[in-house]
């Protein structure tokens, strides 16, 4: 070993590799699994990767620009008071004006990602899905309102599930630290007896929910535009809608960060969050049973920042603060009838 210097050789090889590649690792790369993701995945590396990916996605979608919301229960637009048995056949042949385009997109939706293992999903086949009649209003609800609710989200929603026992007792949670809109349905993270499954698989095969709450977006503030974010979100809602035709989908505004964080972070700041939230609000479409609520109303200070005393790390609520979020949700349920 005296004359031979193996570590120097390893060092030189690594240096060469670094100079050549800059160690740009794939986005999904994980060294030891779970804990790695807890480094909050909001660092610049991820943002850059995301930007690159968005650009590729933008190129790809140039051919087929608008991905419309897939509307399975289309008959409701015309006859909202009818209880509809929506099955996949129906939803594939909507009567909406943009029928052709919708159909194309939907076929792509259903065949592309799960062509190999999963059969084409027929949500609610042979089941009658109760759809409450229009109109809907937003107002106070009781805790058991959440008994058929599902929450999809990132670390903040993880916290809501853990530190709001009253809500956790009723609702279901598919939430994961560092989740983004683009991975939300296709990243296998839901623990089941048969291993980890994607939210898409769960929504297809598990059960039908009455309400699906979504809060996502803080992890992708560094990349894309408000419009691209909205369209990604729209596509995700569309895919959920196919699988869960009866559910009310409630999009939550992205929770703000504190003023001090907002002032010093070029990406994760409230100006950007407000832009994203305005784009999300455009997705609301009561006829399609898609609603937008903004829990920031119960968490902000006068300047529109997350109240500093509610958070320690400026991004996440402290355990004791989640009650305020829940309180807002209790006051802003979507109720059928006026």
């Amino acid at each position, binding site marked *: *070993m*005296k*004359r031979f*210097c*193996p*570590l*120097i050789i*390893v*060092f030189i090889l*690594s*240096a060469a590799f*670094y*100079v050549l590649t800059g*160690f*740009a*690792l794939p986005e999904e*790369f*994980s*060294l*030891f699994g*779970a*804990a*790695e993701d*807890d*480094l*909050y995945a909001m*660092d*610049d*590396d991820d943002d850059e990767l995301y930007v690159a990916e968005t650009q590729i996605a933008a190129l790809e979608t140039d051919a087929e620009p608008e991905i419309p919301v897939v509307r399975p229960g289309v008959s409701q637009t015309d006859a909202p008071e009818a209880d509809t048995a929506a099955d996949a056949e129906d939803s594939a042949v909507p009567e909406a004006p943009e029928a052709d385009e919708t159909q194309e997109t939907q076929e792509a939706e259903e065949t592309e990602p799960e062509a190999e293992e999963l059969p084409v999903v027929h949500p609610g086949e042979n089941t009658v899905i109760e759809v409450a009649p229009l109109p809907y209003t937003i107002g106070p609800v009781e805790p058991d309102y959440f008994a058929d609710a599902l929450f999809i989200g990132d670390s903040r929603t993880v*916290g809501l599930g*853990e*530190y*709001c*026992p009253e809500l956790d007792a009723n609702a279901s949670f598919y939430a994961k630290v560092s989740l983004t809109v683009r991975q939300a349905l296709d990243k296998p993270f839901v623990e089941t007896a048969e291993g980890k499954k994607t939210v898409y698989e769960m929504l297809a095969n598990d059960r039908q929910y009455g309400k699906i709450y979504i809060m996502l977006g803080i992890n992708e503030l560094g990349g894309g535009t408000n419009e691209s974010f909205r369209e990604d979100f729209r596509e995700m809602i569309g895919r959920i809608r196919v699988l869960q035709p009866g559910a009310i989908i409630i999009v939550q505004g992205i929770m703000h960060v504190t003023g001090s964080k907002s002032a010093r972070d070029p990406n994760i700041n409230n100006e950007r969050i407000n832009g994203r939230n305005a784009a999300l609000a455009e997705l609301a479409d009561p006829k399609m049973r898609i609603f937008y609520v903004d829990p920031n109303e119960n968490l902000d200070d006068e300047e529109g920042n997350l109240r500093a005393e509610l*958070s*320690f*790390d400026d991004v*996440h609520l*402290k*355990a*004791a*603060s*989640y*009650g305020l979020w829940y309180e807002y949700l209790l006051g802003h349920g979507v109720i059928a009838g006026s």
Partner: protein
Amino acid sequence: MSFTDFDFIFRFLPAFLILYYLAPAMARIYVLIVGSVFFYAMADLRFIPVLLFLSLWNYLIGKGAANGEKTVLALGVAADVISLAAARSLAAGLPGFALPLGISFYTFRMISYCFDSYRGKIPKETTFTQALAYFCLFPQILSGPIMRYGDFAKISAFTAPSETKPLKTRIADILVRVENGLTWFIFGLAAKVLLADHLRSLWNTLGGIGYESLSVPLAWLGALTYSMELYYDFWGYSMMAAGVGIMIGLPMIVNFDQPYASDSVGTFYRRWHMTLGTFFRDYVYIPLGGSRGGWLKTVRNLAFVWLLTGIWHGVNFGYLLWAASVLYMILVERALRERNSRIAAVVGRIHVLLGIPLTWVMFAVGDLERIGAYFLRLFPIVPTQGVVFAGDFAKYTSQYGIYLLFSLVFLLPCVYHCYVRFRRSVPVTVILSGLFVLSLISMARAGNNPFLYLQF
């Protein structure tokens, strides 16, 4: 630029070493100075003039105090202490004023230089160039270790006659030196990146939850987590600094020597951040009379040293409480040892394994109200106001258990001693290479965490 920047590891360090060893022996010290100033400038350009001015000042004081001039020494030390105190007060009081990087460490190196000069330990013919190279030395400028000038003078790379020989005849020596340095550098990098950074992530998560909402087992796990994080962060940094030092021809500077294997808090702090401990011993405790003046004076001297240690870390309630708790444990141990050494040893172990982690909680948390909230979860004598997630302990042990496990394994002195003994063997070299690659991947994956100790 810190040791865990890719730019440092793969650009600065190799470029520096090549220039350093290509330069003729006479010029090598200038390469060291220019490299060090460049390294510091990359991290903190604003305070280069302060660093250079203090270097000149302390060199002159060193010359003036060399004949045992007490007044000159006092003048020099006062300037260093005032600079440090002023910088710290400004950083604490003036929003937007960042503490000059490394000032706590390089002013202490300067104080030690003045004292050593006063005590005749520094050769009279020392030039300003040599002193400047010592003050600015890049592996040590940001977070120590607080190496003495005597160790710096041992640097053989530009003093040994063999170094003037042509490159061909000394290349083998250089490679052995760099290879040896890499064994420490990589070990330190892995400790910092693979253990400390991941444990820090858990510690931050606990803060995010809010201490009042931790379950009791998680609160204890948190005390362990922070203790291990601090240890591997700073020990890792110290090994990286030592490794770079070896590469440029310095002796191995040991800053941590298996502190958690100690049987008393007193011993713990002789093995933890040793260069700071010996600094206070040599330049404060012993000049005050040490333990030779009877009980009362010993207690007074210890209290003064620990007050200074607390303040050196920062004027913050947590640091003072930490220092006071450590002092208390040391005094209890001293009192017990005079009566029954066996009981003293048992109490000492309990202090090290249980008391020290609790003092680190104070150290980390800082503010009285939050320290109180944390301790009420460690010792839940009153029910908490927070919301506790019953599954939190299971969740975080399953996510971070592996890091905690390894951090405990490397507390065992035999593991470390095995490493020291076999670090040039084939299997350990293979493991080290693997750890190096894993560390690089982890760094690329997680972005960079600056060293925790950098703020001090």
